[in-house]
């Protein structure tokens, strides 16, 4: 028998970005909030200590802060004809663990999606006709850019995001991204300092008629006190950002922006090292009653709550819904069902690597978002009428780190060991820059999530199964953008230039991006979405599902800004409407 605990107004599963934002907003509204977190407590002083954080082996290679596959693994295959096998180590993507979640070790590339991304299906249909997107399973989000613009703004001011606005109240601004949706005001902090590679990229892109700008960075360009009164420091460009906790209080994370306030509140509690087993429903099946979890000693506890918020990493949210029997599983044969539908990722490949004799980049001076980008070929910012694809990519160059275990390029044809390798490594390190493209990932019928029939976790519950390959549309898009990248790279006259191609066969081993989206998508139609436009479950009205699992398809840039804007959007709906009148916010 599970130990029955006293009820709470709100029970949050997972204390990362979305759990922290919802915790802050709902405690401010006077609710009694409990967060249940599987991993350990983490704070800057203890866990991201400047004395030993610059340790590539421990954090970047042995992945000390990430979710251990021993705690939760997933299986993968490229299509239904294959047998999914467990990713025994995470490689292609690296989910977070513990308080702060993936918000601890992200790069801090703090983007908004474009207005057309939120209405991808209707926008592309209107502009190019339905046939153009027939091979894809595109959906509108059910919410528009303009509706959540103020939520993006709140997140950027929470983070102290460093950047340059491109469009303010409809007016194009010099030096920003002219393709962005109109914003209400400038970023809270100016852009970061510009490294050599980004300045070369910007110059080359501008010469080709493109519009480069500094990538919005949740790495702080100057000291800052956010609207919650939390002080942050200036980024020192240490080069230990992504995969690491920030020891300088200068990368925006739950720890550096919200938790110092939230943890002191009497109406907030977090229980760490407690793993939720499932969400329990009332007999009517339409409302959630409680969650069952195992505490740090393995004791089974039942925690009742009036409002249940699923705030884990997107993939884990989807699995929790499956394990709790909430939602109708998606069937890729028929295209019917919603849970697990429209799983998408991020399209890579098509980048260029430039080797110089006469240029010195000092790659170890880096930050997670020390990058310049151009969005001329992003989303629908260019005419696709005569192209054989939809979507696009953000082209960029920057330097995040020069950590040598993983980053020490040598010219093509160099042996991988021995004297020649040594000579080439010593001569080449620091003389290489790259230009890359991060591409959109659009849904197709065959890419989806469900439970694995064979493999189970340490508690005997089925693992999540990912069935995914890069859609042909996205491959064509990425290689077309790759050709534009090559033009920019060539104009810089490198001594050696190498280029890559996007290709089929998603590989779980090499790191690509932790930008997994979909599976519990939002929308206006309960037949094709798991949650409504406020991230409220269509089936269980006191359950909200946060995170990138809500994205019907993925845009080209990093998802965290949109994940957190949607968290503020959901928090507003709960605070202003749901609390006053609990029940479905949108009639099914």
């Amino acid at each position: 028998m599970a130990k029955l605990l006293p009820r709470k107004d709100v029970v949050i599963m997972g204390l990362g970005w979305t759990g922290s934002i919802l915790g802050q907003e709902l405690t401010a509204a006077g609710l009694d909030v409990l967060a249940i977190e599987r991993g350990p407590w983490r704070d800057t002083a203890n866990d991201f200590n400047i004395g030993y954080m610059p340790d590539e082996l421990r954090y970047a290679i042995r992945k000390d802060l990430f979710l251990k596959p021993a705690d939760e693994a997933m299986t993968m295959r490229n299509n239904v004809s294959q047998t999914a096998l467990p990713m025994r180590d995470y490689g292609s993507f690296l989910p977070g663990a513990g308080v702060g979640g993936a918000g601890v070790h992200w790069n801090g590339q703090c983007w908004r999606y474009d207005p057309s991304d939120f209405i991808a299906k209707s926008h592309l249909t209107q502009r190019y006709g339905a046939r153009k997107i027939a091979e894809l399973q595109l959906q509108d989000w059910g919410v528009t850019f303009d509706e959540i613009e103020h939520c993006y703004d709140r997140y950027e001011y929470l983070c102290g995001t460093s950047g340059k606005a491109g469009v303010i109240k409809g007016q194009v601004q010099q030096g920003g991204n002219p393709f962005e949706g109109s914003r209400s005001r400038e970023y809270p902090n100016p852009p970061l300092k510009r490294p050599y590679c980004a300045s070369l990229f910007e110059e080359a892109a501008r010469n080709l008629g493109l519009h480069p700008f500094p990538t919005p960075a949740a790495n702080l360009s100057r000291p800052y006190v956010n609207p919650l009164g939390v002080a942050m420091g200036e980024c020192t460009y240490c080069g230990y950002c992504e995969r690491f906790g920030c020891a300088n209080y200068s990368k925006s994370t739950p720890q550096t922006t919200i938790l110092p306030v939230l943890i002191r509140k009497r109406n907030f509690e977090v229980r760490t090292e407690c793993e939720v087993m499932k969400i329990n429903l009332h007999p009517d099946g339409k409302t959630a009653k409680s969650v069952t979890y195992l505490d740090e000693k393995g004791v089974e506890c039942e925690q009742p709550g009036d409002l249940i918020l699923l705030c884990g990493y997107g993939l884990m949210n989807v699995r929790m819904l499956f394990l709790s029997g909430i939602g109708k599983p998606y069937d890729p044969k028929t295209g019917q069902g919603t849970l697990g539908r429209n799983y998408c990722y991020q399209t890579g490949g098509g980048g260029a690597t430039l080797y110089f004799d006469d240029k010195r980049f000092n790659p170890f001076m880096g930050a997670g978002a020390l990058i310049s980008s151009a969005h001329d070929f992003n989303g629908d910012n260019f005419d696709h009428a005569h192209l054989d694809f939809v979507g696009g990519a953000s082209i960029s160059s920057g330097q995040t780190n020069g950590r040598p275990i993983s980053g020490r390029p040598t010219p093509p044809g160099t042996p991988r060991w021995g004297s020649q390798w040594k000579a080439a490594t010593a001569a080449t390190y620091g003389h290489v820059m790259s230009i890359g493209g991060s591409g959109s990932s659009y849904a197709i019928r065959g890419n989806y999530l469900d439970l694995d029939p064979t493999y189970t976790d340490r508690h005997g519950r089925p693992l999540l199964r990912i069935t995914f390959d890069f859609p042909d549309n996205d491959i064509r898009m990425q290689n077309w953008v790759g050709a534009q990248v090559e033009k920019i790279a060539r104009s810089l006259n490198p001594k050696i230039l190498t280029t890559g191609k996007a290709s089929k066969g998603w590989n779980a081993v090499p790191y690509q991006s932790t930008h997994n989206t979909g599976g519990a998508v939002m929308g206006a139609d309960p037949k094709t979405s798991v949650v409504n436009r406020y991230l409220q479950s269509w089936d269980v009205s006191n359950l909200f599902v946060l995170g990138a699992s809500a994205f019907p398809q993925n845009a080209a840039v990093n998802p965290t800004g949109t994940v957190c804007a949607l968290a503020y959007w959901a928090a507003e709906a709960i605070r202003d409407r749901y609390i006053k009148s609990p029940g479905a916010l949108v009639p099914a």
Partner: protein
Amino acid sequence: MTQSGDGGADKSEGLKLCRRRFLASVAVLAIPGAPALARSYSGIKPPFFPFGADPPRPINPAGWYFLKPNEVAMVEAIVDRFIPADHLSPGGKDAGCAVFIDRQLAGSYGASSRLYMKGPFMPGLATQGYQGELTPAGRYRLGLARLSDYIRAHYAGKEFAALSHAQQDDVLAGLESGKIELKLVPGFSARAFFELMLQNTMEGFFADPLYGGNRGMVAWKMIGFPGARYDYRDYVEKHNQPYPHGPVSIYGEHG
């Protein structure tokens, strides 16, 4: 921590300083009248706790923890061919790469303790990653034994370490290209064994010296990587100019 690299302060002193700073922050929270922490359940780790930091312990360079004497000889010879001594740096052995590998195999990495290791173990596709049952420690034990068998059979009963450098390079190139097959287990090829050894050797060579390799920060000096330095604000915008300072390590070596 001795970030500046010019004080030469003792590392343990640096850690004490961190703890003092940390205790001060706790003291602020303990002031009567300050808001109490929200947690109220017993058995929950408090969010801030003294002496909670978990700094890495530098390895003890003496002795061997996993490798047996004949394995040590092989691994030392192999890391010395991967990273031969020349004017750019000492060889892999003198840089500590064999010690690094030994300590890694004796610890969490060698035991796959953080990985998903539940069966069934089935042959997978290349896109699905390593699917074998053997941990890195198990792969080294088996791989080194079979490699030793192969060399004795093909080089008149000699051990790897007794071969000429040219012969050693031939063997390693044969493993790398797949020309040499060893009697291993399904899912673990001779090529995969080569990749594992090369990866671990490079990890040791380029990691912080506290793990046993990169002794004297020789790898960082070779390429011009400043190591554990943490503040480049004054240099980011000095484009196309060399960075003027040598590396520092986590435990305060500087060069």
